[in-house]
């Protein structure tokens, strides 16, 4: 079988999603039989963007003209482009301060020193290019990353997850942290697939996987209000990983 040619790059983000892939130590040798990791700056010596790719896995937000060019170039050269992790899919932590004055933010971080590049509000990939599939999570689950690669090896893509964190939480017979524990758990609105990792440890869901399809925000807000959480607190929590909840 011909090896699939991959490009794996990070834009504005913490590189944690790419690291999650590198942490699959047991599987890495096997992956080398199936894939040519042609462009993977985080893992390999610098390589040039050249030729065409069977798939590009992109972590992070687009926040500089250079990143925008790079993303457009990758899109042109790749059969599939996959958003890797919550920043790439939803904006995530990188887009937390969108809507605020960027000059003020620049001064808070860099003071009077000049920074070399021009930046814009960090945007998820779909603001710039067509995205063929997404892997949610901050960082993504190992089994989802490996599942994506296995799917790519067969010329297909992972199915959309259309159930919230609550589904897998109930399957694990956890105490409901919201209705029974009176905690601000965002599982109801958050895309599943993590096997309710946090609520299973009695830690409320932080919403790191972004909104579930068909999220019923109005009813959820009603429920949070009944539990004594005001709208601002809930929205602030929600917006940590998907700033557009505000809209």
């Amino acid at each position: 079988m011909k090896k699939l040619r991959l490009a794996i790059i990070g834009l504005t983000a913490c590189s944690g999603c790419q690291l999650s892939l590198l942490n699959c130590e047991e599987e890495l040798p096997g992956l080398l039989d199936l894939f040519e990791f042609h462009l993977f700056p985080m893992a390999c010596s610098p390589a040039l963007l050249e030729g065409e790719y069977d798939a590009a896995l992109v972590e992070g937000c687009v926040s500089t003209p250079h990143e925008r060019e790079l993303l457009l170039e990758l899109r042109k050269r790749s059969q599939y482009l996959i958003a890797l992790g919550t920043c790439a899919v939803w904006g995530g932590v990188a887009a937390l301060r969108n809507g605020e004055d960027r000059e003020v933010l620049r001064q808070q971080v860099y003071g009077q020193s000049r920074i070399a590049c021009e930046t814009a509000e960090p945007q998820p990939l779909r603001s710039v290019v067509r995205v063929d599939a997404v892997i949610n999570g901050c960082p993504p689950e190992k089994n989802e990353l490996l599942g994506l690669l296995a799917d790519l090896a067969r010329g297909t893509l992972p199915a959309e997850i259309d159930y919230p964190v609550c589904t897998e939480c109930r399957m694990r017979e956890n105490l409901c942290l919201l209705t029974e524990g009176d905690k601000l758990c965002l599982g109801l609105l958050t895309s599943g697939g993590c096997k309710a990792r946090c609520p299973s440890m009695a830690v409320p869901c932080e919403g790191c996987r972004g909104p579930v399809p068909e999220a019923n925000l109005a009813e959820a807000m009603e429920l949070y209000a009944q539990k004594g959480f005001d709208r601002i607190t809930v929205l602030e929590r929600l917006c940590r990983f998907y700033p557009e909840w505000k809209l």
Partner: protein
Amino acid sequence: MAARFISHDNLELLLERLRMYGNLHGPVRGDDGVVRFTALSPGTPPDLSAVRSLLPPKKYLLHPRETILTYTADAGYQLPSEENSPLILFGLHPCDLAGIQYLDRLFLGDDPDLLYTARRAALTLIGISCTPDDFCSCHRFATPLEAVSDLFLASVDGGYVVTSSSPRGYELLKGVQELLEEREIESPEDSRRFFGQAVSGPAFSELDATLPEWQELANHCLGCGACSLCCPTCACFDVLECGGLDGDSAVRVRRWDNCLFKSHAQVAGGMNFRKDRAERFRYRYRHKYRGFGPLRGFPACVGCGRCRVACPAGLDLRPLAERLEGAHHEQ
């Protein structure tokens, strides 16, 4: 009438004896207050006062996620093989027994499911009587499902009247004979009597798609799936083909699904037979109270109340059911 009686004092000895026949599981209240069916090891007593567990016993017969077919280049397609050591479920309420009977109809019928058949064969059911609470509706709607078990413990003063209804139950009864005493007791009435009733009338007619209730339910639904995960008779599953990382092998997985999820009625090309939640609610209602396909006129609701208890929005199909189906017998 002579009946076999076991005192509350002898219950622990009964459990100890039952452990000799297989793995013994029953309802246990965890430190977090959640009641789950789990192993009744010595020192872990069953919580016989709990009205319902979070998940019903269907989890033993259909796992939330499981492999149903494996492919490798060398061996070709292979059905999963698993060892099913004998499992005894203790403390099943009549609704859960009826729920298992419904699953039997689905999975042991014309085209038996191999995994289900093997697990079911390894299962011994020991029922116990209960007192319905405000969420229960076993006593409000007719169901032709029967609450059948191998052994049943019906509560009476100071203990239980024990009856067997299968050869396996009879064997168990013989094995625990010295823990029982013959007593002159009238057979107590218990909630099994709510089951096994013929239905007629509305159960066979179509539902009105224009009822405003469908949209009202949809407006409040959070789409979390709790209602069907916790339902003893919900058995919808999704099937996924998962390729292995060697490039050759693959497994076919089935996992619990929910009719309120977007993908439940979605087909190739993104088309969807039930695009909005209101339509999905009508579908759900029809399954629970009227049945469809070969099970038309065969309601699937056993009245355990789990969907109402588990729903974060507190959605309840019962008021609508009372209007459309009519309450059928005395409280």
